[in-house]
């Protein structure tokens, strides 16, 4: 009869960030180890809180499945002597398998006959194999950082303090260092006292419930989510939608009770990003907003316990937040006293990189790069660009950004607003860091786009120029992210930037530094690097590899144009016309791919069909080229489909590889013209 299995690893509080993966790994590893041990079950479920990882296997068979064990021995030829009697080797093998020689079987393996010892092994009782299996499951867990404790050499995320291992109603004995498994668990750290005896899985679930532990993470998360919404609604608002914070809190508490706390509205004078960052990062509180999206002077915390002590907990948390906000208000006021023009000069004491100078040097480069890009793409006032470039790094020396580095750019914008800078300048300061991560917002103002590109191009160019490139998972200067930003902006904002020129300019602005790479090398390497990011962005957007490759092969430099082509080719590839198109392309390309000339000597042509094909092709060429110029790639491809009957007739009548070299050359040249025409949009030889 099948029974339920429980393994609970009782630990000191595991970091919440480790938990989702630990729970998933526990499940995967259990499935693997159980199946390796030939133990079948109905279902496997894993749960976790900060203090426990629980594996519950439902309907685990009482015995291992029987196994057939096959061991290959010597070749048959070696197992018998000349008289056909068992040889020494044959007898030896049988003995080593604990079998009579006569019980061995002869089977073929890789074309040769071998002696095989085949025997059935009866499955052992699960209770016998489980200790080892469970131990292996525990040992197979790994964490981003693990530790030793006491006299133990075993490593885990945090010390293991108890183990529960029960199959049916029976204890499974196992031992990890000095911890011996038992039929017991612990309840909530503060609302329960000491070890609790448990009989089986059902009893375990029941006892935890009674001792203030909500084991199921999904259930806990749903409760927290419901509670914070209710608390916010009672205060006339909505909690910030923040899945990451919700997950973190889910693994910080075993028995959640949300509460609303408030702070003095006078702190709302501080920019809301500062307040919310302090609440979330420092205190794990949910900020609350009113219907209009305005921050309310309150927060929602989640107590690890019941509501009985909630007033004390609320008061304590309010005091802590008040001290934090007091600090923030102090920094804000201090920062508002600063003369930002002077602050920029002080950036000469902040090192950007030992070989690339100070942040002040970088500002000078940004001013030059941004001006050059602005001139190139137009549509923006030069004084705005220059001012924004000058000010954009100043907030690095503000007290607020020192305290909250993630607010860089956001604070810069606020300080610029407060000191009366023009709106475009303020926004560009914020936008020059965008996008900060994949999927982040993009700069939307013209000045923001220019400055963001200038910043990223300087970053990439300067590091490439001193020979620093990401390798494997090592990318300490976040060059991939910068390249991703450039590619995304070019794809989605279409600023019309000429990257080669911009990178060349950025390189020229490094002239005061000692560089390792030449201008040409840096341009090629940087563009290539951005192109790789572009490729992965396009792949993430769902375009298939072959289409991306085909377009990259035909058109490698104008990134903004690429997606248009990829879109058109993808669309065309799925249309009914694709088949005819590929007939035209393949018949033309197969013969002409190693032929380079498309010069036709009309005089030597003989057959009707080849003359007509040539006329059709030459007639079509200007139309196709015109469509491509208009970036109407689907139209261009459709036109080529018209060639199908001409191509078919040509191949029906004409022998391309004729002995007459001149004739052959002209026929191949016609085909080459067709292939080239197709490849103006994308290299269709790469389409699968």
């Amino acid at each position, binding site marked *: 009869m099948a029974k339920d299995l429980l393994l609970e690893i009782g630990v*000191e*509080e595991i*970091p*919440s*960030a480790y938990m989702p993966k630990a729970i998933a790994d526990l499940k995967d590893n259990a499935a693997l180890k159980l199946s390796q041990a030939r133990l079948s079950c109905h279902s496997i479920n894993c749960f976790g809180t*900060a203090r426990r990882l629980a594996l519950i296997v439902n309907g685990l068979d009482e015995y291992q499945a029987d196994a057939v064990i096959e061991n290959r021995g010597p070749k048959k030829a070696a197992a018998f002597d000349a008289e056909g009697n068992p040889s020494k080797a044959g007898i030896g093998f049988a003995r080593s398998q604990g079998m009579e020689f006569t019980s061995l079987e002869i089977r073929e393996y890789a074309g040769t006959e071998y002696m095989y010892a085949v025997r059935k092994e009866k499955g052992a009782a699960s209770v016998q194999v489980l200790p080892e299996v469970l131990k292996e499951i525990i040992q197979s867990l790994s964490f981003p*950082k693990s*530790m*030793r*404790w*006491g*006299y*133990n050499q075993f490593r885990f995320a*945090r*010390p293991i*303090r108890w183990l529960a291992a029960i199959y049916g109603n029976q204890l499974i004995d196992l031992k990890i260092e*000095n911890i011996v498994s038992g039929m017991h668990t612990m309840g909530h*750290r*503060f*609302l329960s006292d000491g070890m609790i005896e448990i009989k089986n899985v059902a009893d375990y679930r029941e006892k935890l419930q009674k001792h203030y532990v909500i084991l199921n993470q999904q259930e806990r998360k749903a409760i927290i989510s419901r509670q914070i919404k209710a608390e916010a609604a009672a205060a006339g608002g909505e909690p910030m939608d923040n899945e990451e914070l919700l997950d973190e809190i889910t693994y*910080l508490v075993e028995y959640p009770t949300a509460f609303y706390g408030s702070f003095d509205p006078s702190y709302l004078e501080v920019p809301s990003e500062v307040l919310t960052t302090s609440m979330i990062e420092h*205190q794990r509180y949910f900020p609350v907003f009113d219907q209009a999206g305005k921050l309310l002077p309150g927060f929602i*915390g989640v*107590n*690890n*316990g019941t509501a009985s*002590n909630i007033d*004390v*907990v609320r*008061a*304590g*948390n309010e*005091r*802590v*937040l*008040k*001290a934090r906000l*007091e*600090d923030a208000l*102090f920094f804000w006021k201090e920062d508002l006293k600063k003369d930002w023009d002077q602050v920029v000069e002080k950036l000469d*004491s*902040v*090192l950007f990189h*030992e070989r690339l100078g100070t942040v002040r040097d970088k500002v000078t480069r940004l001013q030059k790069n941004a001006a050059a890009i602005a001139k190139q793409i137009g549509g923006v006032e030069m004084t705005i660009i220059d001012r924004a470039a000058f000010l954009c790094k100043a907030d690095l020396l503000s007290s607020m950004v020192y305290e909250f580095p993630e607010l860089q750019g956001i604070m810069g914008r606020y300080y610029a607003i407060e000191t009366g800078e023009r709106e475009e300048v303020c926004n560009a300061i914020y936008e020059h860091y965008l996008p900060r991560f994949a999927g982040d917002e993009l700069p939307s103002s013209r000045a923001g786009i220019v400055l963001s590109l200038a910043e990223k191009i300087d970053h990439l160019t300067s590091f490439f120029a001193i020979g620093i490139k990401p390798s494997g998972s090592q990318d300490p200067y976040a060059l991939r992210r910068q390249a991703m930003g450039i590619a995304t902006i070019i794809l989605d904002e279409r600023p019309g930037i000429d990257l080669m020129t911009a990178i060349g300019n950025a390189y020229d602005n490094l002239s005061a530094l000692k560089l390792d790479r030449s201008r040409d090398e840096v341009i090629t390497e940087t563009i290539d690097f951005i192109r790789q990011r572009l490729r992965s962005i396009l792949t993430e957007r769902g375009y298939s590899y072959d289409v991306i490759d085909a377009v990259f092969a035909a058109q490698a430099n104008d990134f903004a144009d690429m997606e248009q082509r990829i879109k058109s080719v993808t669309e065309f590839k799925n249309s009914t016309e694709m088949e005819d198109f590929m007939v035209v392309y393949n018949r033309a390309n197969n013969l002409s791919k190693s032929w380079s000339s498309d010069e036709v000597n009309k005089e030597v042509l003989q057959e009707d069909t080849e003359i007509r094909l040539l006329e059709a092709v030459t007639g079509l060429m200007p139309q196709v080229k015109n469509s491509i110029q208009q970036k109407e790639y689907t139209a261009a491809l459709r036109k080529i489909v018209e060639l199908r009957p001409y191509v078919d007739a040509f191949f029906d009548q004409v022998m391309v590889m004729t002995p007459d070299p001149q004739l052959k050359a002209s026929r191949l040249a016609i085909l080459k013209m067709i292939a080239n025409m197709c490849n103006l949009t994308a290299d269709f030889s790469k389409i699968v």
Partner: protein
Amino acid sequence: MNFQEIILKLQEYWGQQGCVIQQPYDLEKGAGTMNPATFLRALGPEPWKVAYVEPSRRPTDGRYGENPNRLQHYYQFQVILKPSPDDVIDLYLNSLKKIGINPQEHDIRLVEDNWESPTLGAWGLGWEIWLDGMEITQFTYFQQCGSYDCFPVCAEITYGLERIAMYIQNKESVYDIEWADGITYADVHHQTEVDYSRYNFELADVQALAAMFSICEKEALQVAENNLVQPAYDYVLKCSHLFNLLDARAAISVTERTGYILRVRNLARVVAGKYLEQRKSLGFPLIKDEALRRQLLEEKEA
């Protein structure tokens, strides 16, 4: 409960748990971890239990006595339990009860915090312990110290005394803490906070400090070479404090910073190695299990 009573209660409690109650070490240091009763004793195989108050200096945290929560000189209450006992968290929670904090009445949370001291070549995993959202204690299982693996592993419990006192006494400013009857924290420390802030940020002679750093570094190595462990360690502490002062004067660039940290870490490693040798040559006297002691002494490396 006033400030000194909190300290007395903690000393009494940890003394009852078998800790040696030591006194602060008589040199400037950034944290209780740097007291040789932690930094050196955490090394090697010998068990050790100690508790002490440690005046700690962080020159960059000075605020001229104007910020209610930040000080350049403050107090830690430090406990080392080596090896870390299985019920170490309960021992800690019981200590809170002794100073009037009943965990059942509050929200006490163990929030991941991994401690690292690049200058000491030390790191460990553990938590910040939160009391209703406020960090009151740092709890660390030492994994490495002086660049040597710790075995057995010790648990380090570091109480932030001022924060705990502010909470217990319901004060909004550290300076309002009642130290003893009729005497506040401000009475004891306010003027020194103002003066040290000025010294640390404005007056400390950068060139002299840099020169002193080099002298102390040389002295540490010279003394260590003569196998005088704690005298050598004194100069490591001096180097560490001089580095902090230079940092407060903003006299160290990012690149120089790494260089200074490496220099101090190197000294810490040298002294840690000397300490391990010395304990072994003394026969690991704190190991009471004779068989274990002999076995460890026979091992090639301490």
